[in-house]
């Protein structure tokens, strides 16, 4: 192959500049000027609308607008005024640039980013000279001790962050539930008897505490329970787990074992619990086994019984940590 064969097409160069009407026609230029001015004036009207809406439209006025539905009038017209005011300044400026400002394309030369060889050589020489003068190359003791202290000084700010929070210790394994703690409804804070719950029903439950009005979100985030009643013969549980139920009533932690969302959707017909966050699906009769979705563990089951007055109470604390997994979690 000769070079001729590989020769590309020729660059015809920048095409000749095509002039716009307003460049040579004074009338067109004047028209363009008027158009720009109209756009700017529209913007001014927008600001007037904005000020009017702010001062004169009542805060409790709602108006019906097709498609949008009922709208808060003040916020709608404030917004529209603001939008008009801003948009038309921009539209005017762009129209001005496009019709009246010079549209001649300019060519500028580029230069390679790399410095010239002399500059690079001079730079390297300077660095060598300076480094030599400081004596970093020879004085290795200084170099190493400096590296050590620079490395260590980074620890201080990290250490300062230590007091951001307490150490986890055993906190994640503990909940308020313990033997004899009453189950109360959430909301309502009423104790529950087994007969309050029909077959197929579900109740949202928290542990009874002395001052329910001061119940912290931290405790709710671990204590929340789902109480579900099905027919006792529908359970497919081992003897121990079955003994944790009471007359077909079974209690699960409501906090998803995947990422801690509230497992709040119960499908009565299929007896499935569904977490709306990531769709982990738990099967109630088999002890909330995961039948679909990303969760790797069943919801922890709480052992329940009734006390001498006939109210539902916890028979024991949870036998495992509730909520999402963590490194120290025991199997």
């Amino acid at each position, binding site marked *: 192959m000769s070079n*001729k064969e*590989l*020769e*590309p*097409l020729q*660059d015809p*160069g920048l*095409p000749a500049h095509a002039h716009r009407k307003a460049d040579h026609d004074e009338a067109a230029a004047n028209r363009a000027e008027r158009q720009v001015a109209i756009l700017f004036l529209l913007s001014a009207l927008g600001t007037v609308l904005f000020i009017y809406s*702010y001062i004169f439209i009542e*805060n409790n006025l709602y108006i019906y607008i097709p498609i949008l539905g009922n709208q*808060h009038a003040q*916020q*709608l017209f404030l917004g529209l005024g*603001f939008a008009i005011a*801003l*948009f*038309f300044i*921009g*539209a*005017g*400026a*762009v129209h*001005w*640039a496009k019709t009246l*400002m010079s549209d001649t394309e*300019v*060519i*500028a*030369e*580029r230069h390679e980013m790399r410095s010239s060889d002399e500059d690079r050589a001079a730079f390297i020489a300077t660095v060598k000279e300076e480094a030599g003068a400081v004596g970093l190359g020879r004085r290795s003791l200084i170099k190493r001790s400096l590296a050590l202290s620079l490395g260590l000084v980074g620890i201080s700010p990290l250490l300062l*962050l230590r007091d*951001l*929070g307490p*150490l986890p210790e055993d906190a994640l394994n503990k909940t308020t539930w313990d033997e004899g703690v009453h189950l109360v409804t959430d909301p309502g804070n009423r104790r529950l008897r087994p007969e309050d719950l029909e077959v197929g029903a579900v109740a949202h439950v928290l542990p009874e505490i002395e001052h329910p009005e001061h119940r912290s*979100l*931290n405790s709710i*985030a671990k204590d*929340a329970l789902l109480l579900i009643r099905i027919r006792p013969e529908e359970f497919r549980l081992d003897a121990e787990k079955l003994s944790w139920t009471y007359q077909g009533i079974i209690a699960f932690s409501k*906090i998803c074992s995947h*990422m*801690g*969302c*509230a497992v*709040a959707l119960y499908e009565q017909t299929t007896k499935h619990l569904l977490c*709306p*966050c*990531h*769709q982990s699906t738990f099967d109630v009769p088999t002890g909330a086994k*995961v039948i*679909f979705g*990303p969760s*790797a*563990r069943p919801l922890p089951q709480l052992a329940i019984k009734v006390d001498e007055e006939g109210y539902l109470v916890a028979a024991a604390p949870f036998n495992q940590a509730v909520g*999402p*997994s*963590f*490194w120290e*979690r*025991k*199997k």
Partner: protein
Amino acid sequence: MRAARERVAGSVANFVDERTGAAKFLKKSLNKVFPDHWSFMLGEIALYSFIILLLSGTFLTFWFVPSQEELIYNGSYVPLKGVKMSAAYASTLDISFDVRGGMLMRQIHHWAALLFLAAMVAHMMRVFFTGAFRKPREMNWIFGVALITLGIVEGFLGYSLPDDLLSGTGIRIAQAILQAIPLVGTYAAFFAFGGEFPGLDFIPRIYTVHVLLLPGIMLGLITVHLMLVWYQKHTQYPGPGRTEKNVVGYPLLPVYMAKAGGFLFIVFGVTAFLGAVASINPIWVFGPYTPTQISAGSQPDWYMGWLDGLVRMSPPLESHIFNHTISWNILIPGLIVPGIMFTGLALWPFIESWATGDKREHNLLDRPRNAPSRTAVGAMAITFTIVALINGGNDIIATHFSLTINQIMWATRISIFVLPPLAYVITKRICLALQRADRDLVLHGRETGRLVMLPHGEFVEIHEELSPEEAWTRTSHEQLAPIPAAGIDANGVRAKGVLKDRIRARISKGILQEQIAKPTAKDKLEIGDGHH
């Protein structure tokens, strides 16, 4: 009048220059040339929406109370009167219902955030598909990737601040991801939240991060990003008169300045319009956060949706080793896959130049079809993200299209492996087909649809030859050859690092071998001006 004005301007300029010597720099800068193309506006939109975010966000801070202390709401939104909620949530309600223009500003802020992320992603795609990230602009690409990453975090923290039921659920999920990190996760979560979830410290802490730390870092990065664009001069699309050595466009003053400044107002105006008519994040509908409640169809903002989709489609994997738990179902979709994606993204310029062996400076952009393998990789990444995003909305899709969650979940679980490679192959084929079409166009001209009957009865269609400018635009790109396989020399001695070289030669062959030769001057001569 005019003379007086000029005298004032002159003395101001004189004052500044005598004290800073700025005239030399300004003279050069004001004549700085910027090439013009609609796709160069995408980065501008990102910049302007960032400015809108700073302005509207500052307004919101005047009323927002970053505190999780509980109080009883007594504002003007009647349905929540008397409800116990955090000060953060109550103050967000106050901004929405009791501060005039507060709702508008909240909605502008949220719309601008969505626009900011969307514009950054679109801008990144433009830079990727046109090869603008190549030497000497690799550093700026990395700054861009950092900005997108920070932007996603910043957006998430922002919509977490109101402490409503939806955002609280998002924080719960973020806490679970943090807690799932092996070895240090539990400690990290306890430090971040000041103890157990949700605690009282998280909102005040992320508030500082959201309004000070991250915007500060982003502002710094944006400044450097723009200074580099300025200093390295903007890339330009290939075309007549445009070379690697020049830049063709409009001078900064007045045209570019007027257009860019005007465009800032247009973007602000459009955002304000959206804020006025399109309700977004109606936190009063969700109610205050409590760990025991949740709304069905919980959805994050779009830029987090793909992450949520990955978490949703993850198989239920968890290991227990020596009494410790490793949650692969959280770690893989929540940290490992995104980590690989963003690292790969940041390193892409270096990966590409290693694979093609091209270490030269590039100021002319590629037309995506002329870099088929890169375009195909991009299409693959987009497909992956879209499949994940679809699964992130699986509950919404299920109710709207009468499908089951299980069908969508399994479809996306399979698609996420099958579709990206398929997208690679199809995109590459499309690129090569477009190259072929370019070649045909240059050699044979455009079909005019005019049929002519020749004297001997044959019908031919008249083809109109492309103008030299159009032909040049389609042929000015260069076509690299694959790196030759290095290896065993004449004496049969294996060169050092030969395996690495062989892999590289193989990859380079995969990327560069298949190309449609662009027409040369000789091809064109041979064809002549025939009517075919």
